[in-house]
């Protein structure tokens, strides 16, 4: 880290003293008027040019700086009567309670004062400053409890605080003047004991006698289209303060009755309070004429729309678009479909050269309203908008060196993003494809890395504006480069839904297509390698069609899938070879060939699957839930046997014969045994079904390739099984029973949420109720847990975001402090590994074989 000239050592906050306010001020403001008749700022007014300038052309009379050169200067006003600073009323209360009104001393015994002073001094000496506030607190509590001043023996009347800013001693009001007098009497050393360093904050500075006027630069007025001037909220508030202050002075000098003066004084207090904070409890907020509350100092800073979260931590960019997303499987994986409306609004800057001059002129001729057109031309210094009037001049003046901001076109580079951006695959680089419509279109296979679906999701698109940005996006962020997930080394982008089912059915052993069909299929997805198509005989197997996509030298073995020399010999393609998150075939291709090859091949496999499924057709019917008679009978037998044995266990429990597992009570043991027994039932039935039902059953096909599993079929056609609520059988409801129709302490399966019927034949009322219970519970659970875990993840990611693997393999944070001595302790880049390991032998074999 070079180039650090100054480093912030510490920051301290302190109060402004009246002297300091006067010293910093350059103007004494005397009039609430802003401008004279000519529209010039009034001298001694709130827009005085000595306070800084906000109009171009004018010069600051304090520093002679122009707009943007002059940082602005403070002014001040003298208040007719002191008022309290609303942010310090709590501290004022503490000082009133802990000090004597007569002598101004801290309300504890002299010896205590000496003792505590010594303790604090010692703590400062030993560097344990953090313990001092604890001592201060003890002092304050004991001082508050004192009834009689130990120093001047005066009686202490308890101080009452009435919101927002009035203090009473018994029933008489303590005015800010009296507060000021009291505070001036407090000694510096007593302040230290109470917990305030008088060097930075004397208590009397919390009562304002001099009021600082902030520079005009922090409250600029805006000129409306109608020529009227609209002042900033702060200026409005300040002119209120100045006006009331003047009236207060006038009344005091004229010797007006005390009631009138006090009324004005309270009004001044109100204006000063709302100037600092317009959201104080029990103070009606100051409002515009339209009724909306003024945004004063506190509101400028705090909360989501405040300076920190909105302006300093918030990031906004130009050249970006956002709209709803929808799927388009005909797009390539690394493409994104962009509506014309967006393509004509966002632009790419194109530098004019003598070679592209004519080409760029066609865009200017089209103008901003005809598609491939252009919106602006930059000629070195000026940015010119292209319109019907300016078009001809711009065309004539266009010379190499100018920059034309032309509309987006097919193939332009973009950056596509969906929030929450939890991992690096949440922002990827896509090539544009301009399409009709109003939504962004994307290949459904990239839903997984973005975690997107199409139920109304919106995504953001950014257009890089420089060559460097485009190059960086293409090299580092292209979808191709993101296929292998850094979390498990497998593809995060894979075939889904129809694509898997289609390939599964296509590569079935019995699938045979006619030559015409096979060629139509392959040509429709863009396979133009006619050499391979020529080899097809009259009848083509599905495996041959699939193999037509593969490179000739591909060898691959996984489970039953065997590919030799680019020919699929045996086995059926399923999610384990091409699916999301576990596509071993895709991984092998990615490693042995190139990223581009992998994406290209993947795109073709994906499209082949969809095209084939479209040709073949795919659906599901009620008869798919019919299972053979014998299987059903056998399942019923298994179920009744399970219930019978559960009842036996319950009998054992009731008669006290059941022995508990170590560390478990007898009740827990019973529950465990029963749960185990009943869960076994559904699993064994599931297994039985998958063995016996024909492979042409659509539900089975989906359970093997697509979204579904065998339990879905088992639950529809045989038995739904045990309903679990928070990992246990259902036990809530009435006293010692789940529903009023059961006896108390009934532990039988049917009274605890075991559903022995299937969805197809229907559940009985009791089963239905239990099923609804668990259904509702899981719905609630997901709705409540998602935001919680999301926030947890966000906090974790933010805490770890500056960790980085350095060139020497160590993991370090931003200050280069070591966190891990070698990344993952084995220095393996998971996205380039197989399940987190590197098979050296395999690599050697491959290399030696090639030679």
């Amino acid at each position, binding site marked *: 880290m070079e180039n650090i000239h100054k480093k912030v050592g510490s920051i301290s906050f302190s109060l402004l003293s009246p002297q300091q306010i006067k010293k910093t001020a350059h103007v004494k403001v005397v009039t609430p008027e802003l401008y004279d008749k000519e529209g010039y700022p009034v001298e001694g007014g709130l827009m005085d040019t000595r306070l800084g300038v906000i109009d171009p052309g004018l010069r600051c009379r304090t520093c002679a700086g122009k707009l943007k050169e002059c940082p602005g200067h403070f002014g001040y006003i003298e208040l007719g009567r002191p008022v309290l600073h609303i942010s310090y009323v709590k501290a004022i209360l503490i000082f009133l309670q802990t000090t004597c009104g007569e002598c101004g001393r801290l309300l504890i015994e002299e010896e205590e004062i000496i003792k505590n002073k010594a303790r604090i001094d010692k703590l400062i000496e030993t560097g344990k400053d953090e313990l001092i506030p604890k001592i201060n607190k003890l002092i304050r509590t004991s001082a508050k409890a004192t009834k009689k001043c130990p120093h001047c023996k005066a009686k202490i009347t308890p101080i009452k605080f009435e919101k927002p800013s009035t203090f009473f001693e018994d029933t008489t009001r303590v005015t800010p003047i009296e507060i000021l007098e009291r505070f001036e009497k407090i000694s510096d050393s007593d302040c230290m004991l109470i917990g305030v360093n008088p060097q930075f904050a004397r208590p009397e500075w919390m009562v304002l006698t001099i009021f600082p006027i902030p520079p005009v630069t922090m409250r600029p007025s805006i000129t409306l289209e109608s020529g009227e001037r609209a002042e900033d909220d702060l200026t409005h508030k300040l002119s209120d303060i100045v006006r009331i202050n003047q009236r207060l002075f006038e009344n005091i000098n004229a010797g007006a009755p005390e009631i009138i003066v006090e009324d004005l004084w309270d009004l001044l207090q109100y204006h000063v309070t709302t100037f600092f904070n317009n959201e104080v409890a029990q103070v009606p907020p100051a409002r515009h004429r339209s009724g909306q509350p003024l945004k004063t100092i506190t509101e400028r800073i705090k909360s989501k729309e405040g300076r920190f979260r909105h302006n300093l931590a918030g990031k906004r960019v130009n050249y970006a678009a956002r709209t709803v997303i929808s799927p388009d499987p005909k797009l390539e994986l690394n493409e994104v479909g962009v509506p014309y409306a967006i393509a004509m609004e966002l632009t790419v800057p194109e530098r004019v050269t003598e070679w592209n001059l004519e080409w760029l002129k066609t865009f200017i001729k089209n103008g901003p309203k005809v598609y491939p057109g252009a919106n602006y031309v930059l000629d070195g210094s000026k940015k010119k908008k292209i319109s019907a009037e300016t078009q001809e001049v711009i065309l004539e003046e266009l010379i190499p060196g100018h920059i034309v901001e032309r509309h987006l076109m097919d193939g332009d580079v973009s950056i596509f993003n969906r929030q929450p951006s939890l991992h690096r695959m949440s922002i990827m680089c896509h090539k544009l494809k301009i399409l009709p419509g109003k939504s962004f279109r994307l290949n459904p296979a990239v839903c997984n890395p973005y975690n997107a679906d199409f139920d109304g999701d919106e995504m953001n698109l950014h257009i890089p504006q420089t060559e460097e940005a485009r190059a960086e996006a293409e090299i580092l962020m292209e979808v191709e480069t993101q296929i292998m997930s850094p979390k498990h080394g497998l593809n995060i982008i894979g075939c889904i839904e129809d694509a898997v089912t289609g390939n599964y059915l296509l590569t079935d052993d019995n699938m045979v297509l006619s030559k015409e069909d096979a060629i139509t299929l392959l040509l429709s997805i863009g396979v133009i390698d006619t050499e391979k198509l020529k080899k097809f005989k009259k009848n083509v197997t599905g495996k041959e069609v699939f193999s037509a996509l593969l490179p000739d030298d591909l060898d691959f073995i996984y489970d039953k899938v065997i590919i030799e020399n680019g020919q699929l010999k045996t086995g059926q393609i399923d999610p384990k070879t091409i699916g999301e998150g576990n596509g071993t075939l895709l991984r092998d291709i990615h490693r042995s060939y190139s990223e581009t090859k992998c994406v290209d091949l993947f795109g073709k496999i994906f499209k082949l699957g969809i095209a084939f499924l479209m040709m073949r057709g795919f659906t599901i019917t009620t008869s798919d839930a019919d299972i053979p008679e014998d299987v059903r009978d056998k399942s019923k037998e298994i179920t009744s046997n399970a219930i019978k044995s559960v009842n036996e266990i319950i009998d054992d429990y009731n008669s006290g014969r059941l022995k508990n597992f170590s560390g478990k009570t007898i009740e827990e043991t019973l529950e465990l045994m029963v749960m185990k027994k009943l869960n076994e039932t559904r699993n064994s039935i599931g297994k039985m079904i998958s063995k016996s039902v024909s492979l042409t059953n659509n539900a089975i096909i989906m359970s093997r390739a697509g979204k579904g599993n065998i339990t879905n079929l088992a639950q529809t056609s045989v038995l739904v099984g045990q309903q679990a609520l928070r990992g246990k059988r259902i036990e809530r409801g009435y006293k010692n029973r789940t529903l009023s129709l059961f006896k108390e302490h009934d532990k039988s399966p049917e009274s605890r949420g075991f559903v022995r019927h299937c969805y197809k034949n229907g559940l009985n009322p009791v089963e239905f109720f239990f099923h609804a219970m668990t259904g509702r519970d899981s719905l609630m659970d997901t709705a409540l847990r998602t935001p919680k875990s999301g926030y947890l993840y966000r906090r974790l990611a933010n805490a770890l975001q500056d960790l980085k693997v350095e060139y*020497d393999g*160590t993991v*370090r944070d931003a*200050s*280069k*402090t*070591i*966190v891990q*001595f*070698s990344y*993952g*302790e*084995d220095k*393996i880049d998971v996205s380039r590994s197989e399940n*987190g390991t590197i098979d050296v032998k395999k690599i050697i074999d491959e290399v030696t074989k090639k030679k």
Partner: protein
Amino acid sequence: MDKNIDITQHVLVPKHTKLSQEEAEKILSNLNIISSQLPKILKTDAAIKHLNIEPGEIIEIERDSPTAGKTKFYRVVING
């Protein structure tokens, strides 16, 4: 609890050893860091109490690792 239990014998406590001056310097120069950039360990940590250690010295910890089998970790001793 028995105060005489030797926690270094416990399966979950990895082996802590004190590095000599030369070894420590070698580690630091290999990593191109100063000792304050190392992870820290309290002088009063139960696992190094018996090593008779001074602040500023470096402890080598040999741990079992699910990815690499055995792995070495270094910590600099600090005062609490």
